[in-house]
């Protein structure tokens, strides 16, 4: 039986129906990684033994006739900033090289309970800071659609692993677009749920008020399935809402746009987008209209003008705070010094890479007296204004369509050559994090050169189910992306 290219739902159903075993599914996944990943570098730690053992346990449970979970036997990978008990978790940084947590992130625990099998840890930008997955100490990940291009970041490894057909689903974290942008670059579907939808416990923090766990998959139905598994209240994370969630798979199965009010973002220079991305937006709007939605043009003046600046104020201030615990004292990289202060400086200088150090320094500056009042406090006020702008927008509309990124997947090395352009590339993704909104990156086919095109869909906070319902309808019309054809040669 050919397992490659099956969705998570198909694999779980197949294992349940005993058409094939979880072990077979897991071995197929591991073999593909072993065969191709030397070239693509999406996986930084493969846990073959643990995976096979877990798969066998799933098979035994199925054989005993126990009720298998929704993801029974489904192989998956997590970004390397998810804590995994007994398995290295490094954030792809020298700072945590070789660190093995003694607990599982809540998201990893939920996946385990649902019968999913962890295959490995996915590559990422160091401490989730970057848009290209080039700042990892394990080296850059290559885009499975085009190896001269980056897979996006910072969950580039997770997106590439799904695009490459290693696994049907993967988990990433999204602080300012880190799930959606790599999903767009790699040609898969990615989602950042509403803030408070999924527990952050066990995710090595970048910025507490922006971070959210996000699923990646080849289709919207699998995103919804992961949401059903992951979106639960958690006593270990008081920012994770305890409300009763709707059925996300139920919402996605409806796949309807009839009567929906869809807002199209205007008021920015459409000509600045790469042409295929502008075309993708037009196509999405056409589909919405054809499926019975009404379209209105909207502008978000404050959001478009200030979101990137606001995002970097909030994110970097928070990052400097959350990354202060890496002081060489209890875990992670340690350097000796003649005194405490020198020990801290050397440990942090040696342990963190350049991008992380840069962001910590800027963040520390932002929180310093004087700068705090002049930069950070206004940024927090702007954040509120952005939220308000969306609140007003979603009184008139059920969903917003806008780009994910102004550009198709970048050529490798851009981050070094033009960091400001790279930061500005976050303009459309950061807004969802600042306002706590759910957002999906939806593939809309490929260019003639085979590069993925896409749109971003946003919905009101905790309107994740409605968002998946609309996304599934557009996907049905546009077609879900297929996995990439990989090559072993150079």
């Amino acid at each position, binding site marked *: 039986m050919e397992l490659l290219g099956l969705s998570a739902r198909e694999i779980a159903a197949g294992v349940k129906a005993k058409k094939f075993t979880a072990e077979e599914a897991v071995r197929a996944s591991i073999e593909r990684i072993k065969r191709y990943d030397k070239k693509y570098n999406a996986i930084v730690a493969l846990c073959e033994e643990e995976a096979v053992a877990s798969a066998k346990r799933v098979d035994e449970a199925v054989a005993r006739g126990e009720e298998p979970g929704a993801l029974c036997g489904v192989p998956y990978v997590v970004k390397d*900033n*998810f*804590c995994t008990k007994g398995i290295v*978790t490094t*954030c792809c940084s020298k700072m*945590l090289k070789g*660190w093995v*947590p*003694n*607990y599982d*992130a809540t998201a990893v625990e939920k996946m385990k309970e649902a019968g999913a099998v962890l295959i490995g840890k996915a590559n990422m930008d160091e401490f989730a800071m970057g848009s290209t997955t080039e700042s990892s100490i394990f080296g850059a990940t290559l885009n499975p659609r085009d190896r001269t291009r980056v897979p996006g970041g910072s969950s580039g490894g997770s997106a590439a692993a799904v695009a490459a057909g290693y696994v049907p689903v993967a988990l990433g974290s999204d602080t300012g677009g880190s799930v959606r942008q790599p999903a767009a670059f790699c040609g898969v579907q990615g989602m950042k749920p509403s803030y408070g939808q999924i527990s*952050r*416990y*066990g*995710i*090595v*923090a970048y*910025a*507490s*008020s922006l971070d959210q766990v996000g699923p990646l998959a080849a289709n919207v139905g699998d995103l919804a399935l992961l949401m059903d598994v992951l979106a639960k209240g958690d*006593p*270990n*994370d*008081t*920012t994770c809402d305890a409300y009763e969630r709707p059925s996300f798979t139920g919402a996605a199965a409806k796949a309807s746009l009839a009567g929906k009010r869809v807002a199209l973002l205007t008021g920015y220079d459409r000509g600045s987008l790469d042409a295929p991305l502008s075309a993708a937006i037009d196509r999405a709007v056409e589909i919405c209209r054809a499926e019975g939605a009404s379209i209105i043009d909207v502008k978000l003046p404050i959001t478009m003008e200030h979101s990137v600046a606001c995002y970097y104020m909030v994110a970097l*201030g*928070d990052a*400097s*705070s959350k990354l*202060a*615990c890496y*002081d060489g*004292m*209890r*875990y992670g990289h340690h350097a000796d010094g003649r005194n*405490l*202060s020198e020990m*801290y400086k050397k440990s942090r200088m040696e342990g963190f890479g350049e991008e992380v150090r840069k962001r910590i320094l800027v963040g*520390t500056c932002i*929180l*310093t*007296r004087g700068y*705090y009042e002049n930069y*950070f406090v206004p940024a927090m006020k702007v954040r509120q204004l952005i939220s308000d702008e969306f609140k007003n927008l979603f009184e008139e509309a059920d969903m917003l369509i806008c780009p994910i990124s102004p550009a198709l997947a970048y050529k490798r090395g851009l981050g070094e050559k033009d960091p400001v352009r790279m930061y500005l590339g976050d303009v459309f993704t950061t807004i969802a994090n600042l306002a706590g909104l759910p957002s999906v990156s939806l593939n809309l086919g490929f260019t003639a050169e085979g590069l993925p095109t896409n749109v971003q869909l946003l919905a009101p906070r905790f309107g994740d189910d409605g968002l998946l319902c609309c996304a599934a309808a557009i996907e049905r019309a546009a077609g879900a992306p297929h996995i990439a054809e990989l090559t072993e040669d150079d």
Partner: protein
Amino acid sequence: MKREVVIGLEIHLQLKTRTKLFCSCSTDYIGATPNTNVCPVCLAVPGTLPVINDLAVDLAVKMGLGLHCDIQDGTRFHRKHYFYADLPKAYQITQYEHAIAQGGYLDIIAEGKKKRVHLDHLHLEEDAGKLVHPTADGRLSGAAYSLVDYNRGGMPLSEIVSRPEMNSPAEALAYIAQIRQLARYLDVSDGEMESGSLRVDVNVSLSNPDGSLGTRVELKNINSLRSIGRALEYEIARQNRVLDEGGELEQETRLWDDAAGVTRSMRSKEGARDYRYYVEMDLAPIDAKPDYVRRIRESLPEMPWDKRDRFVSEYGLSLEESQQITEQREVADYYEEIVKAGAPAAKAANWMRTEVQRILRDDALDITEFPISARRLGELISKVEKKELSNTQAKDVLAAMYGEKLSLEEAMKKCGASGEKMTGGALEAVVEKVFASQPEAVDAIKKGADKKGAKVKFLQGLVMRETRGSADPAEVARTVAELLK
């Protein structure tokens, strides 16, 4: 020139919870093996998040209400950043702009005068760990290395910040004592300075000639009430001396060196840290809705000062007596039970302050460990009131009840104070015994040498004492006279 002393205090109270402020580690750290009361959360292991201990919030609100503060809804925590080995996250989670309890006041009595001290606020925060330096004096200087114990890290503290309204060391000490008493009444904290569950930072300055506040000096590291008094006296004298000599004071933090009896500079204003306060986004704001605050308010016991004043009006005690008896809530409760058992209030107060206190002090007991029930003690005191026992007898009975664990009845029998009159043969036996012990006096009387009858009186007195007052004096006189024949 007279300069007025201005003192403000910051008191850290360790809250009485079983678990830490943001995780479920035990708070029972005294004597625990270092780094055993720790978990991923309080060690700031990557990926962990704090979860607020609801009981700590309850206790802080309780204390805030006791201090007449306004309880705020939706208050937040902040992160206070600094790098130090005992601070695992490199920030302390504390309340900064939005303390849970704002304003408030505390009435104190110092040197016989009542005074109202206003508070700035009360906030919640976590404690840091502890550094252990392997030097003889336990200080950092000269240590080749230092060890860190994180058992204390994350302990729940409430910090009570007063306005600078105290004008003498005596007022400062009275304020601390009153806070400690309140904390114990509310069962919010043990309030013990020796074990560190009550810690005080002192701000002291001298007013300028125009009445404005002078340069403020902060004193840290003071571990007892006595030391606080000494440190204040020293620091006030030092500041006066500097100013008298025409010098200027520096705004600084000074440490109290108890052995040397001096304060020493620790860091100046220039060296003050910028803590980069930042909202703690990992914790949702605290829900302290009016309903919740009302429930806590209703659960509050009688305040110590109310009890003190009530004892004065209800039992007719002097303020001083009442203060002494209400100092500890359990002592006050015990006292009220004695009174309920029938003992007159004034006599009961006297017994509490003398006999009971003596036993407690001598044997280092807490009233809760005192084996004699309030009801029994009440009965004993009422027997004195009814003249069934003399004061002396009653004290003996109490000693027997306590020392030999006898019941009231057994103790009375043992002391010959069972209430039965000693007459007839029993009395004669006692008289014979007294005579036997005083052969010279007996001899002198028999020889007619006791012209004034003093020796007879002496023997009668001895008999009375021997019978512990249970014999009728007239019968004693008669019996002595008969047996002398």
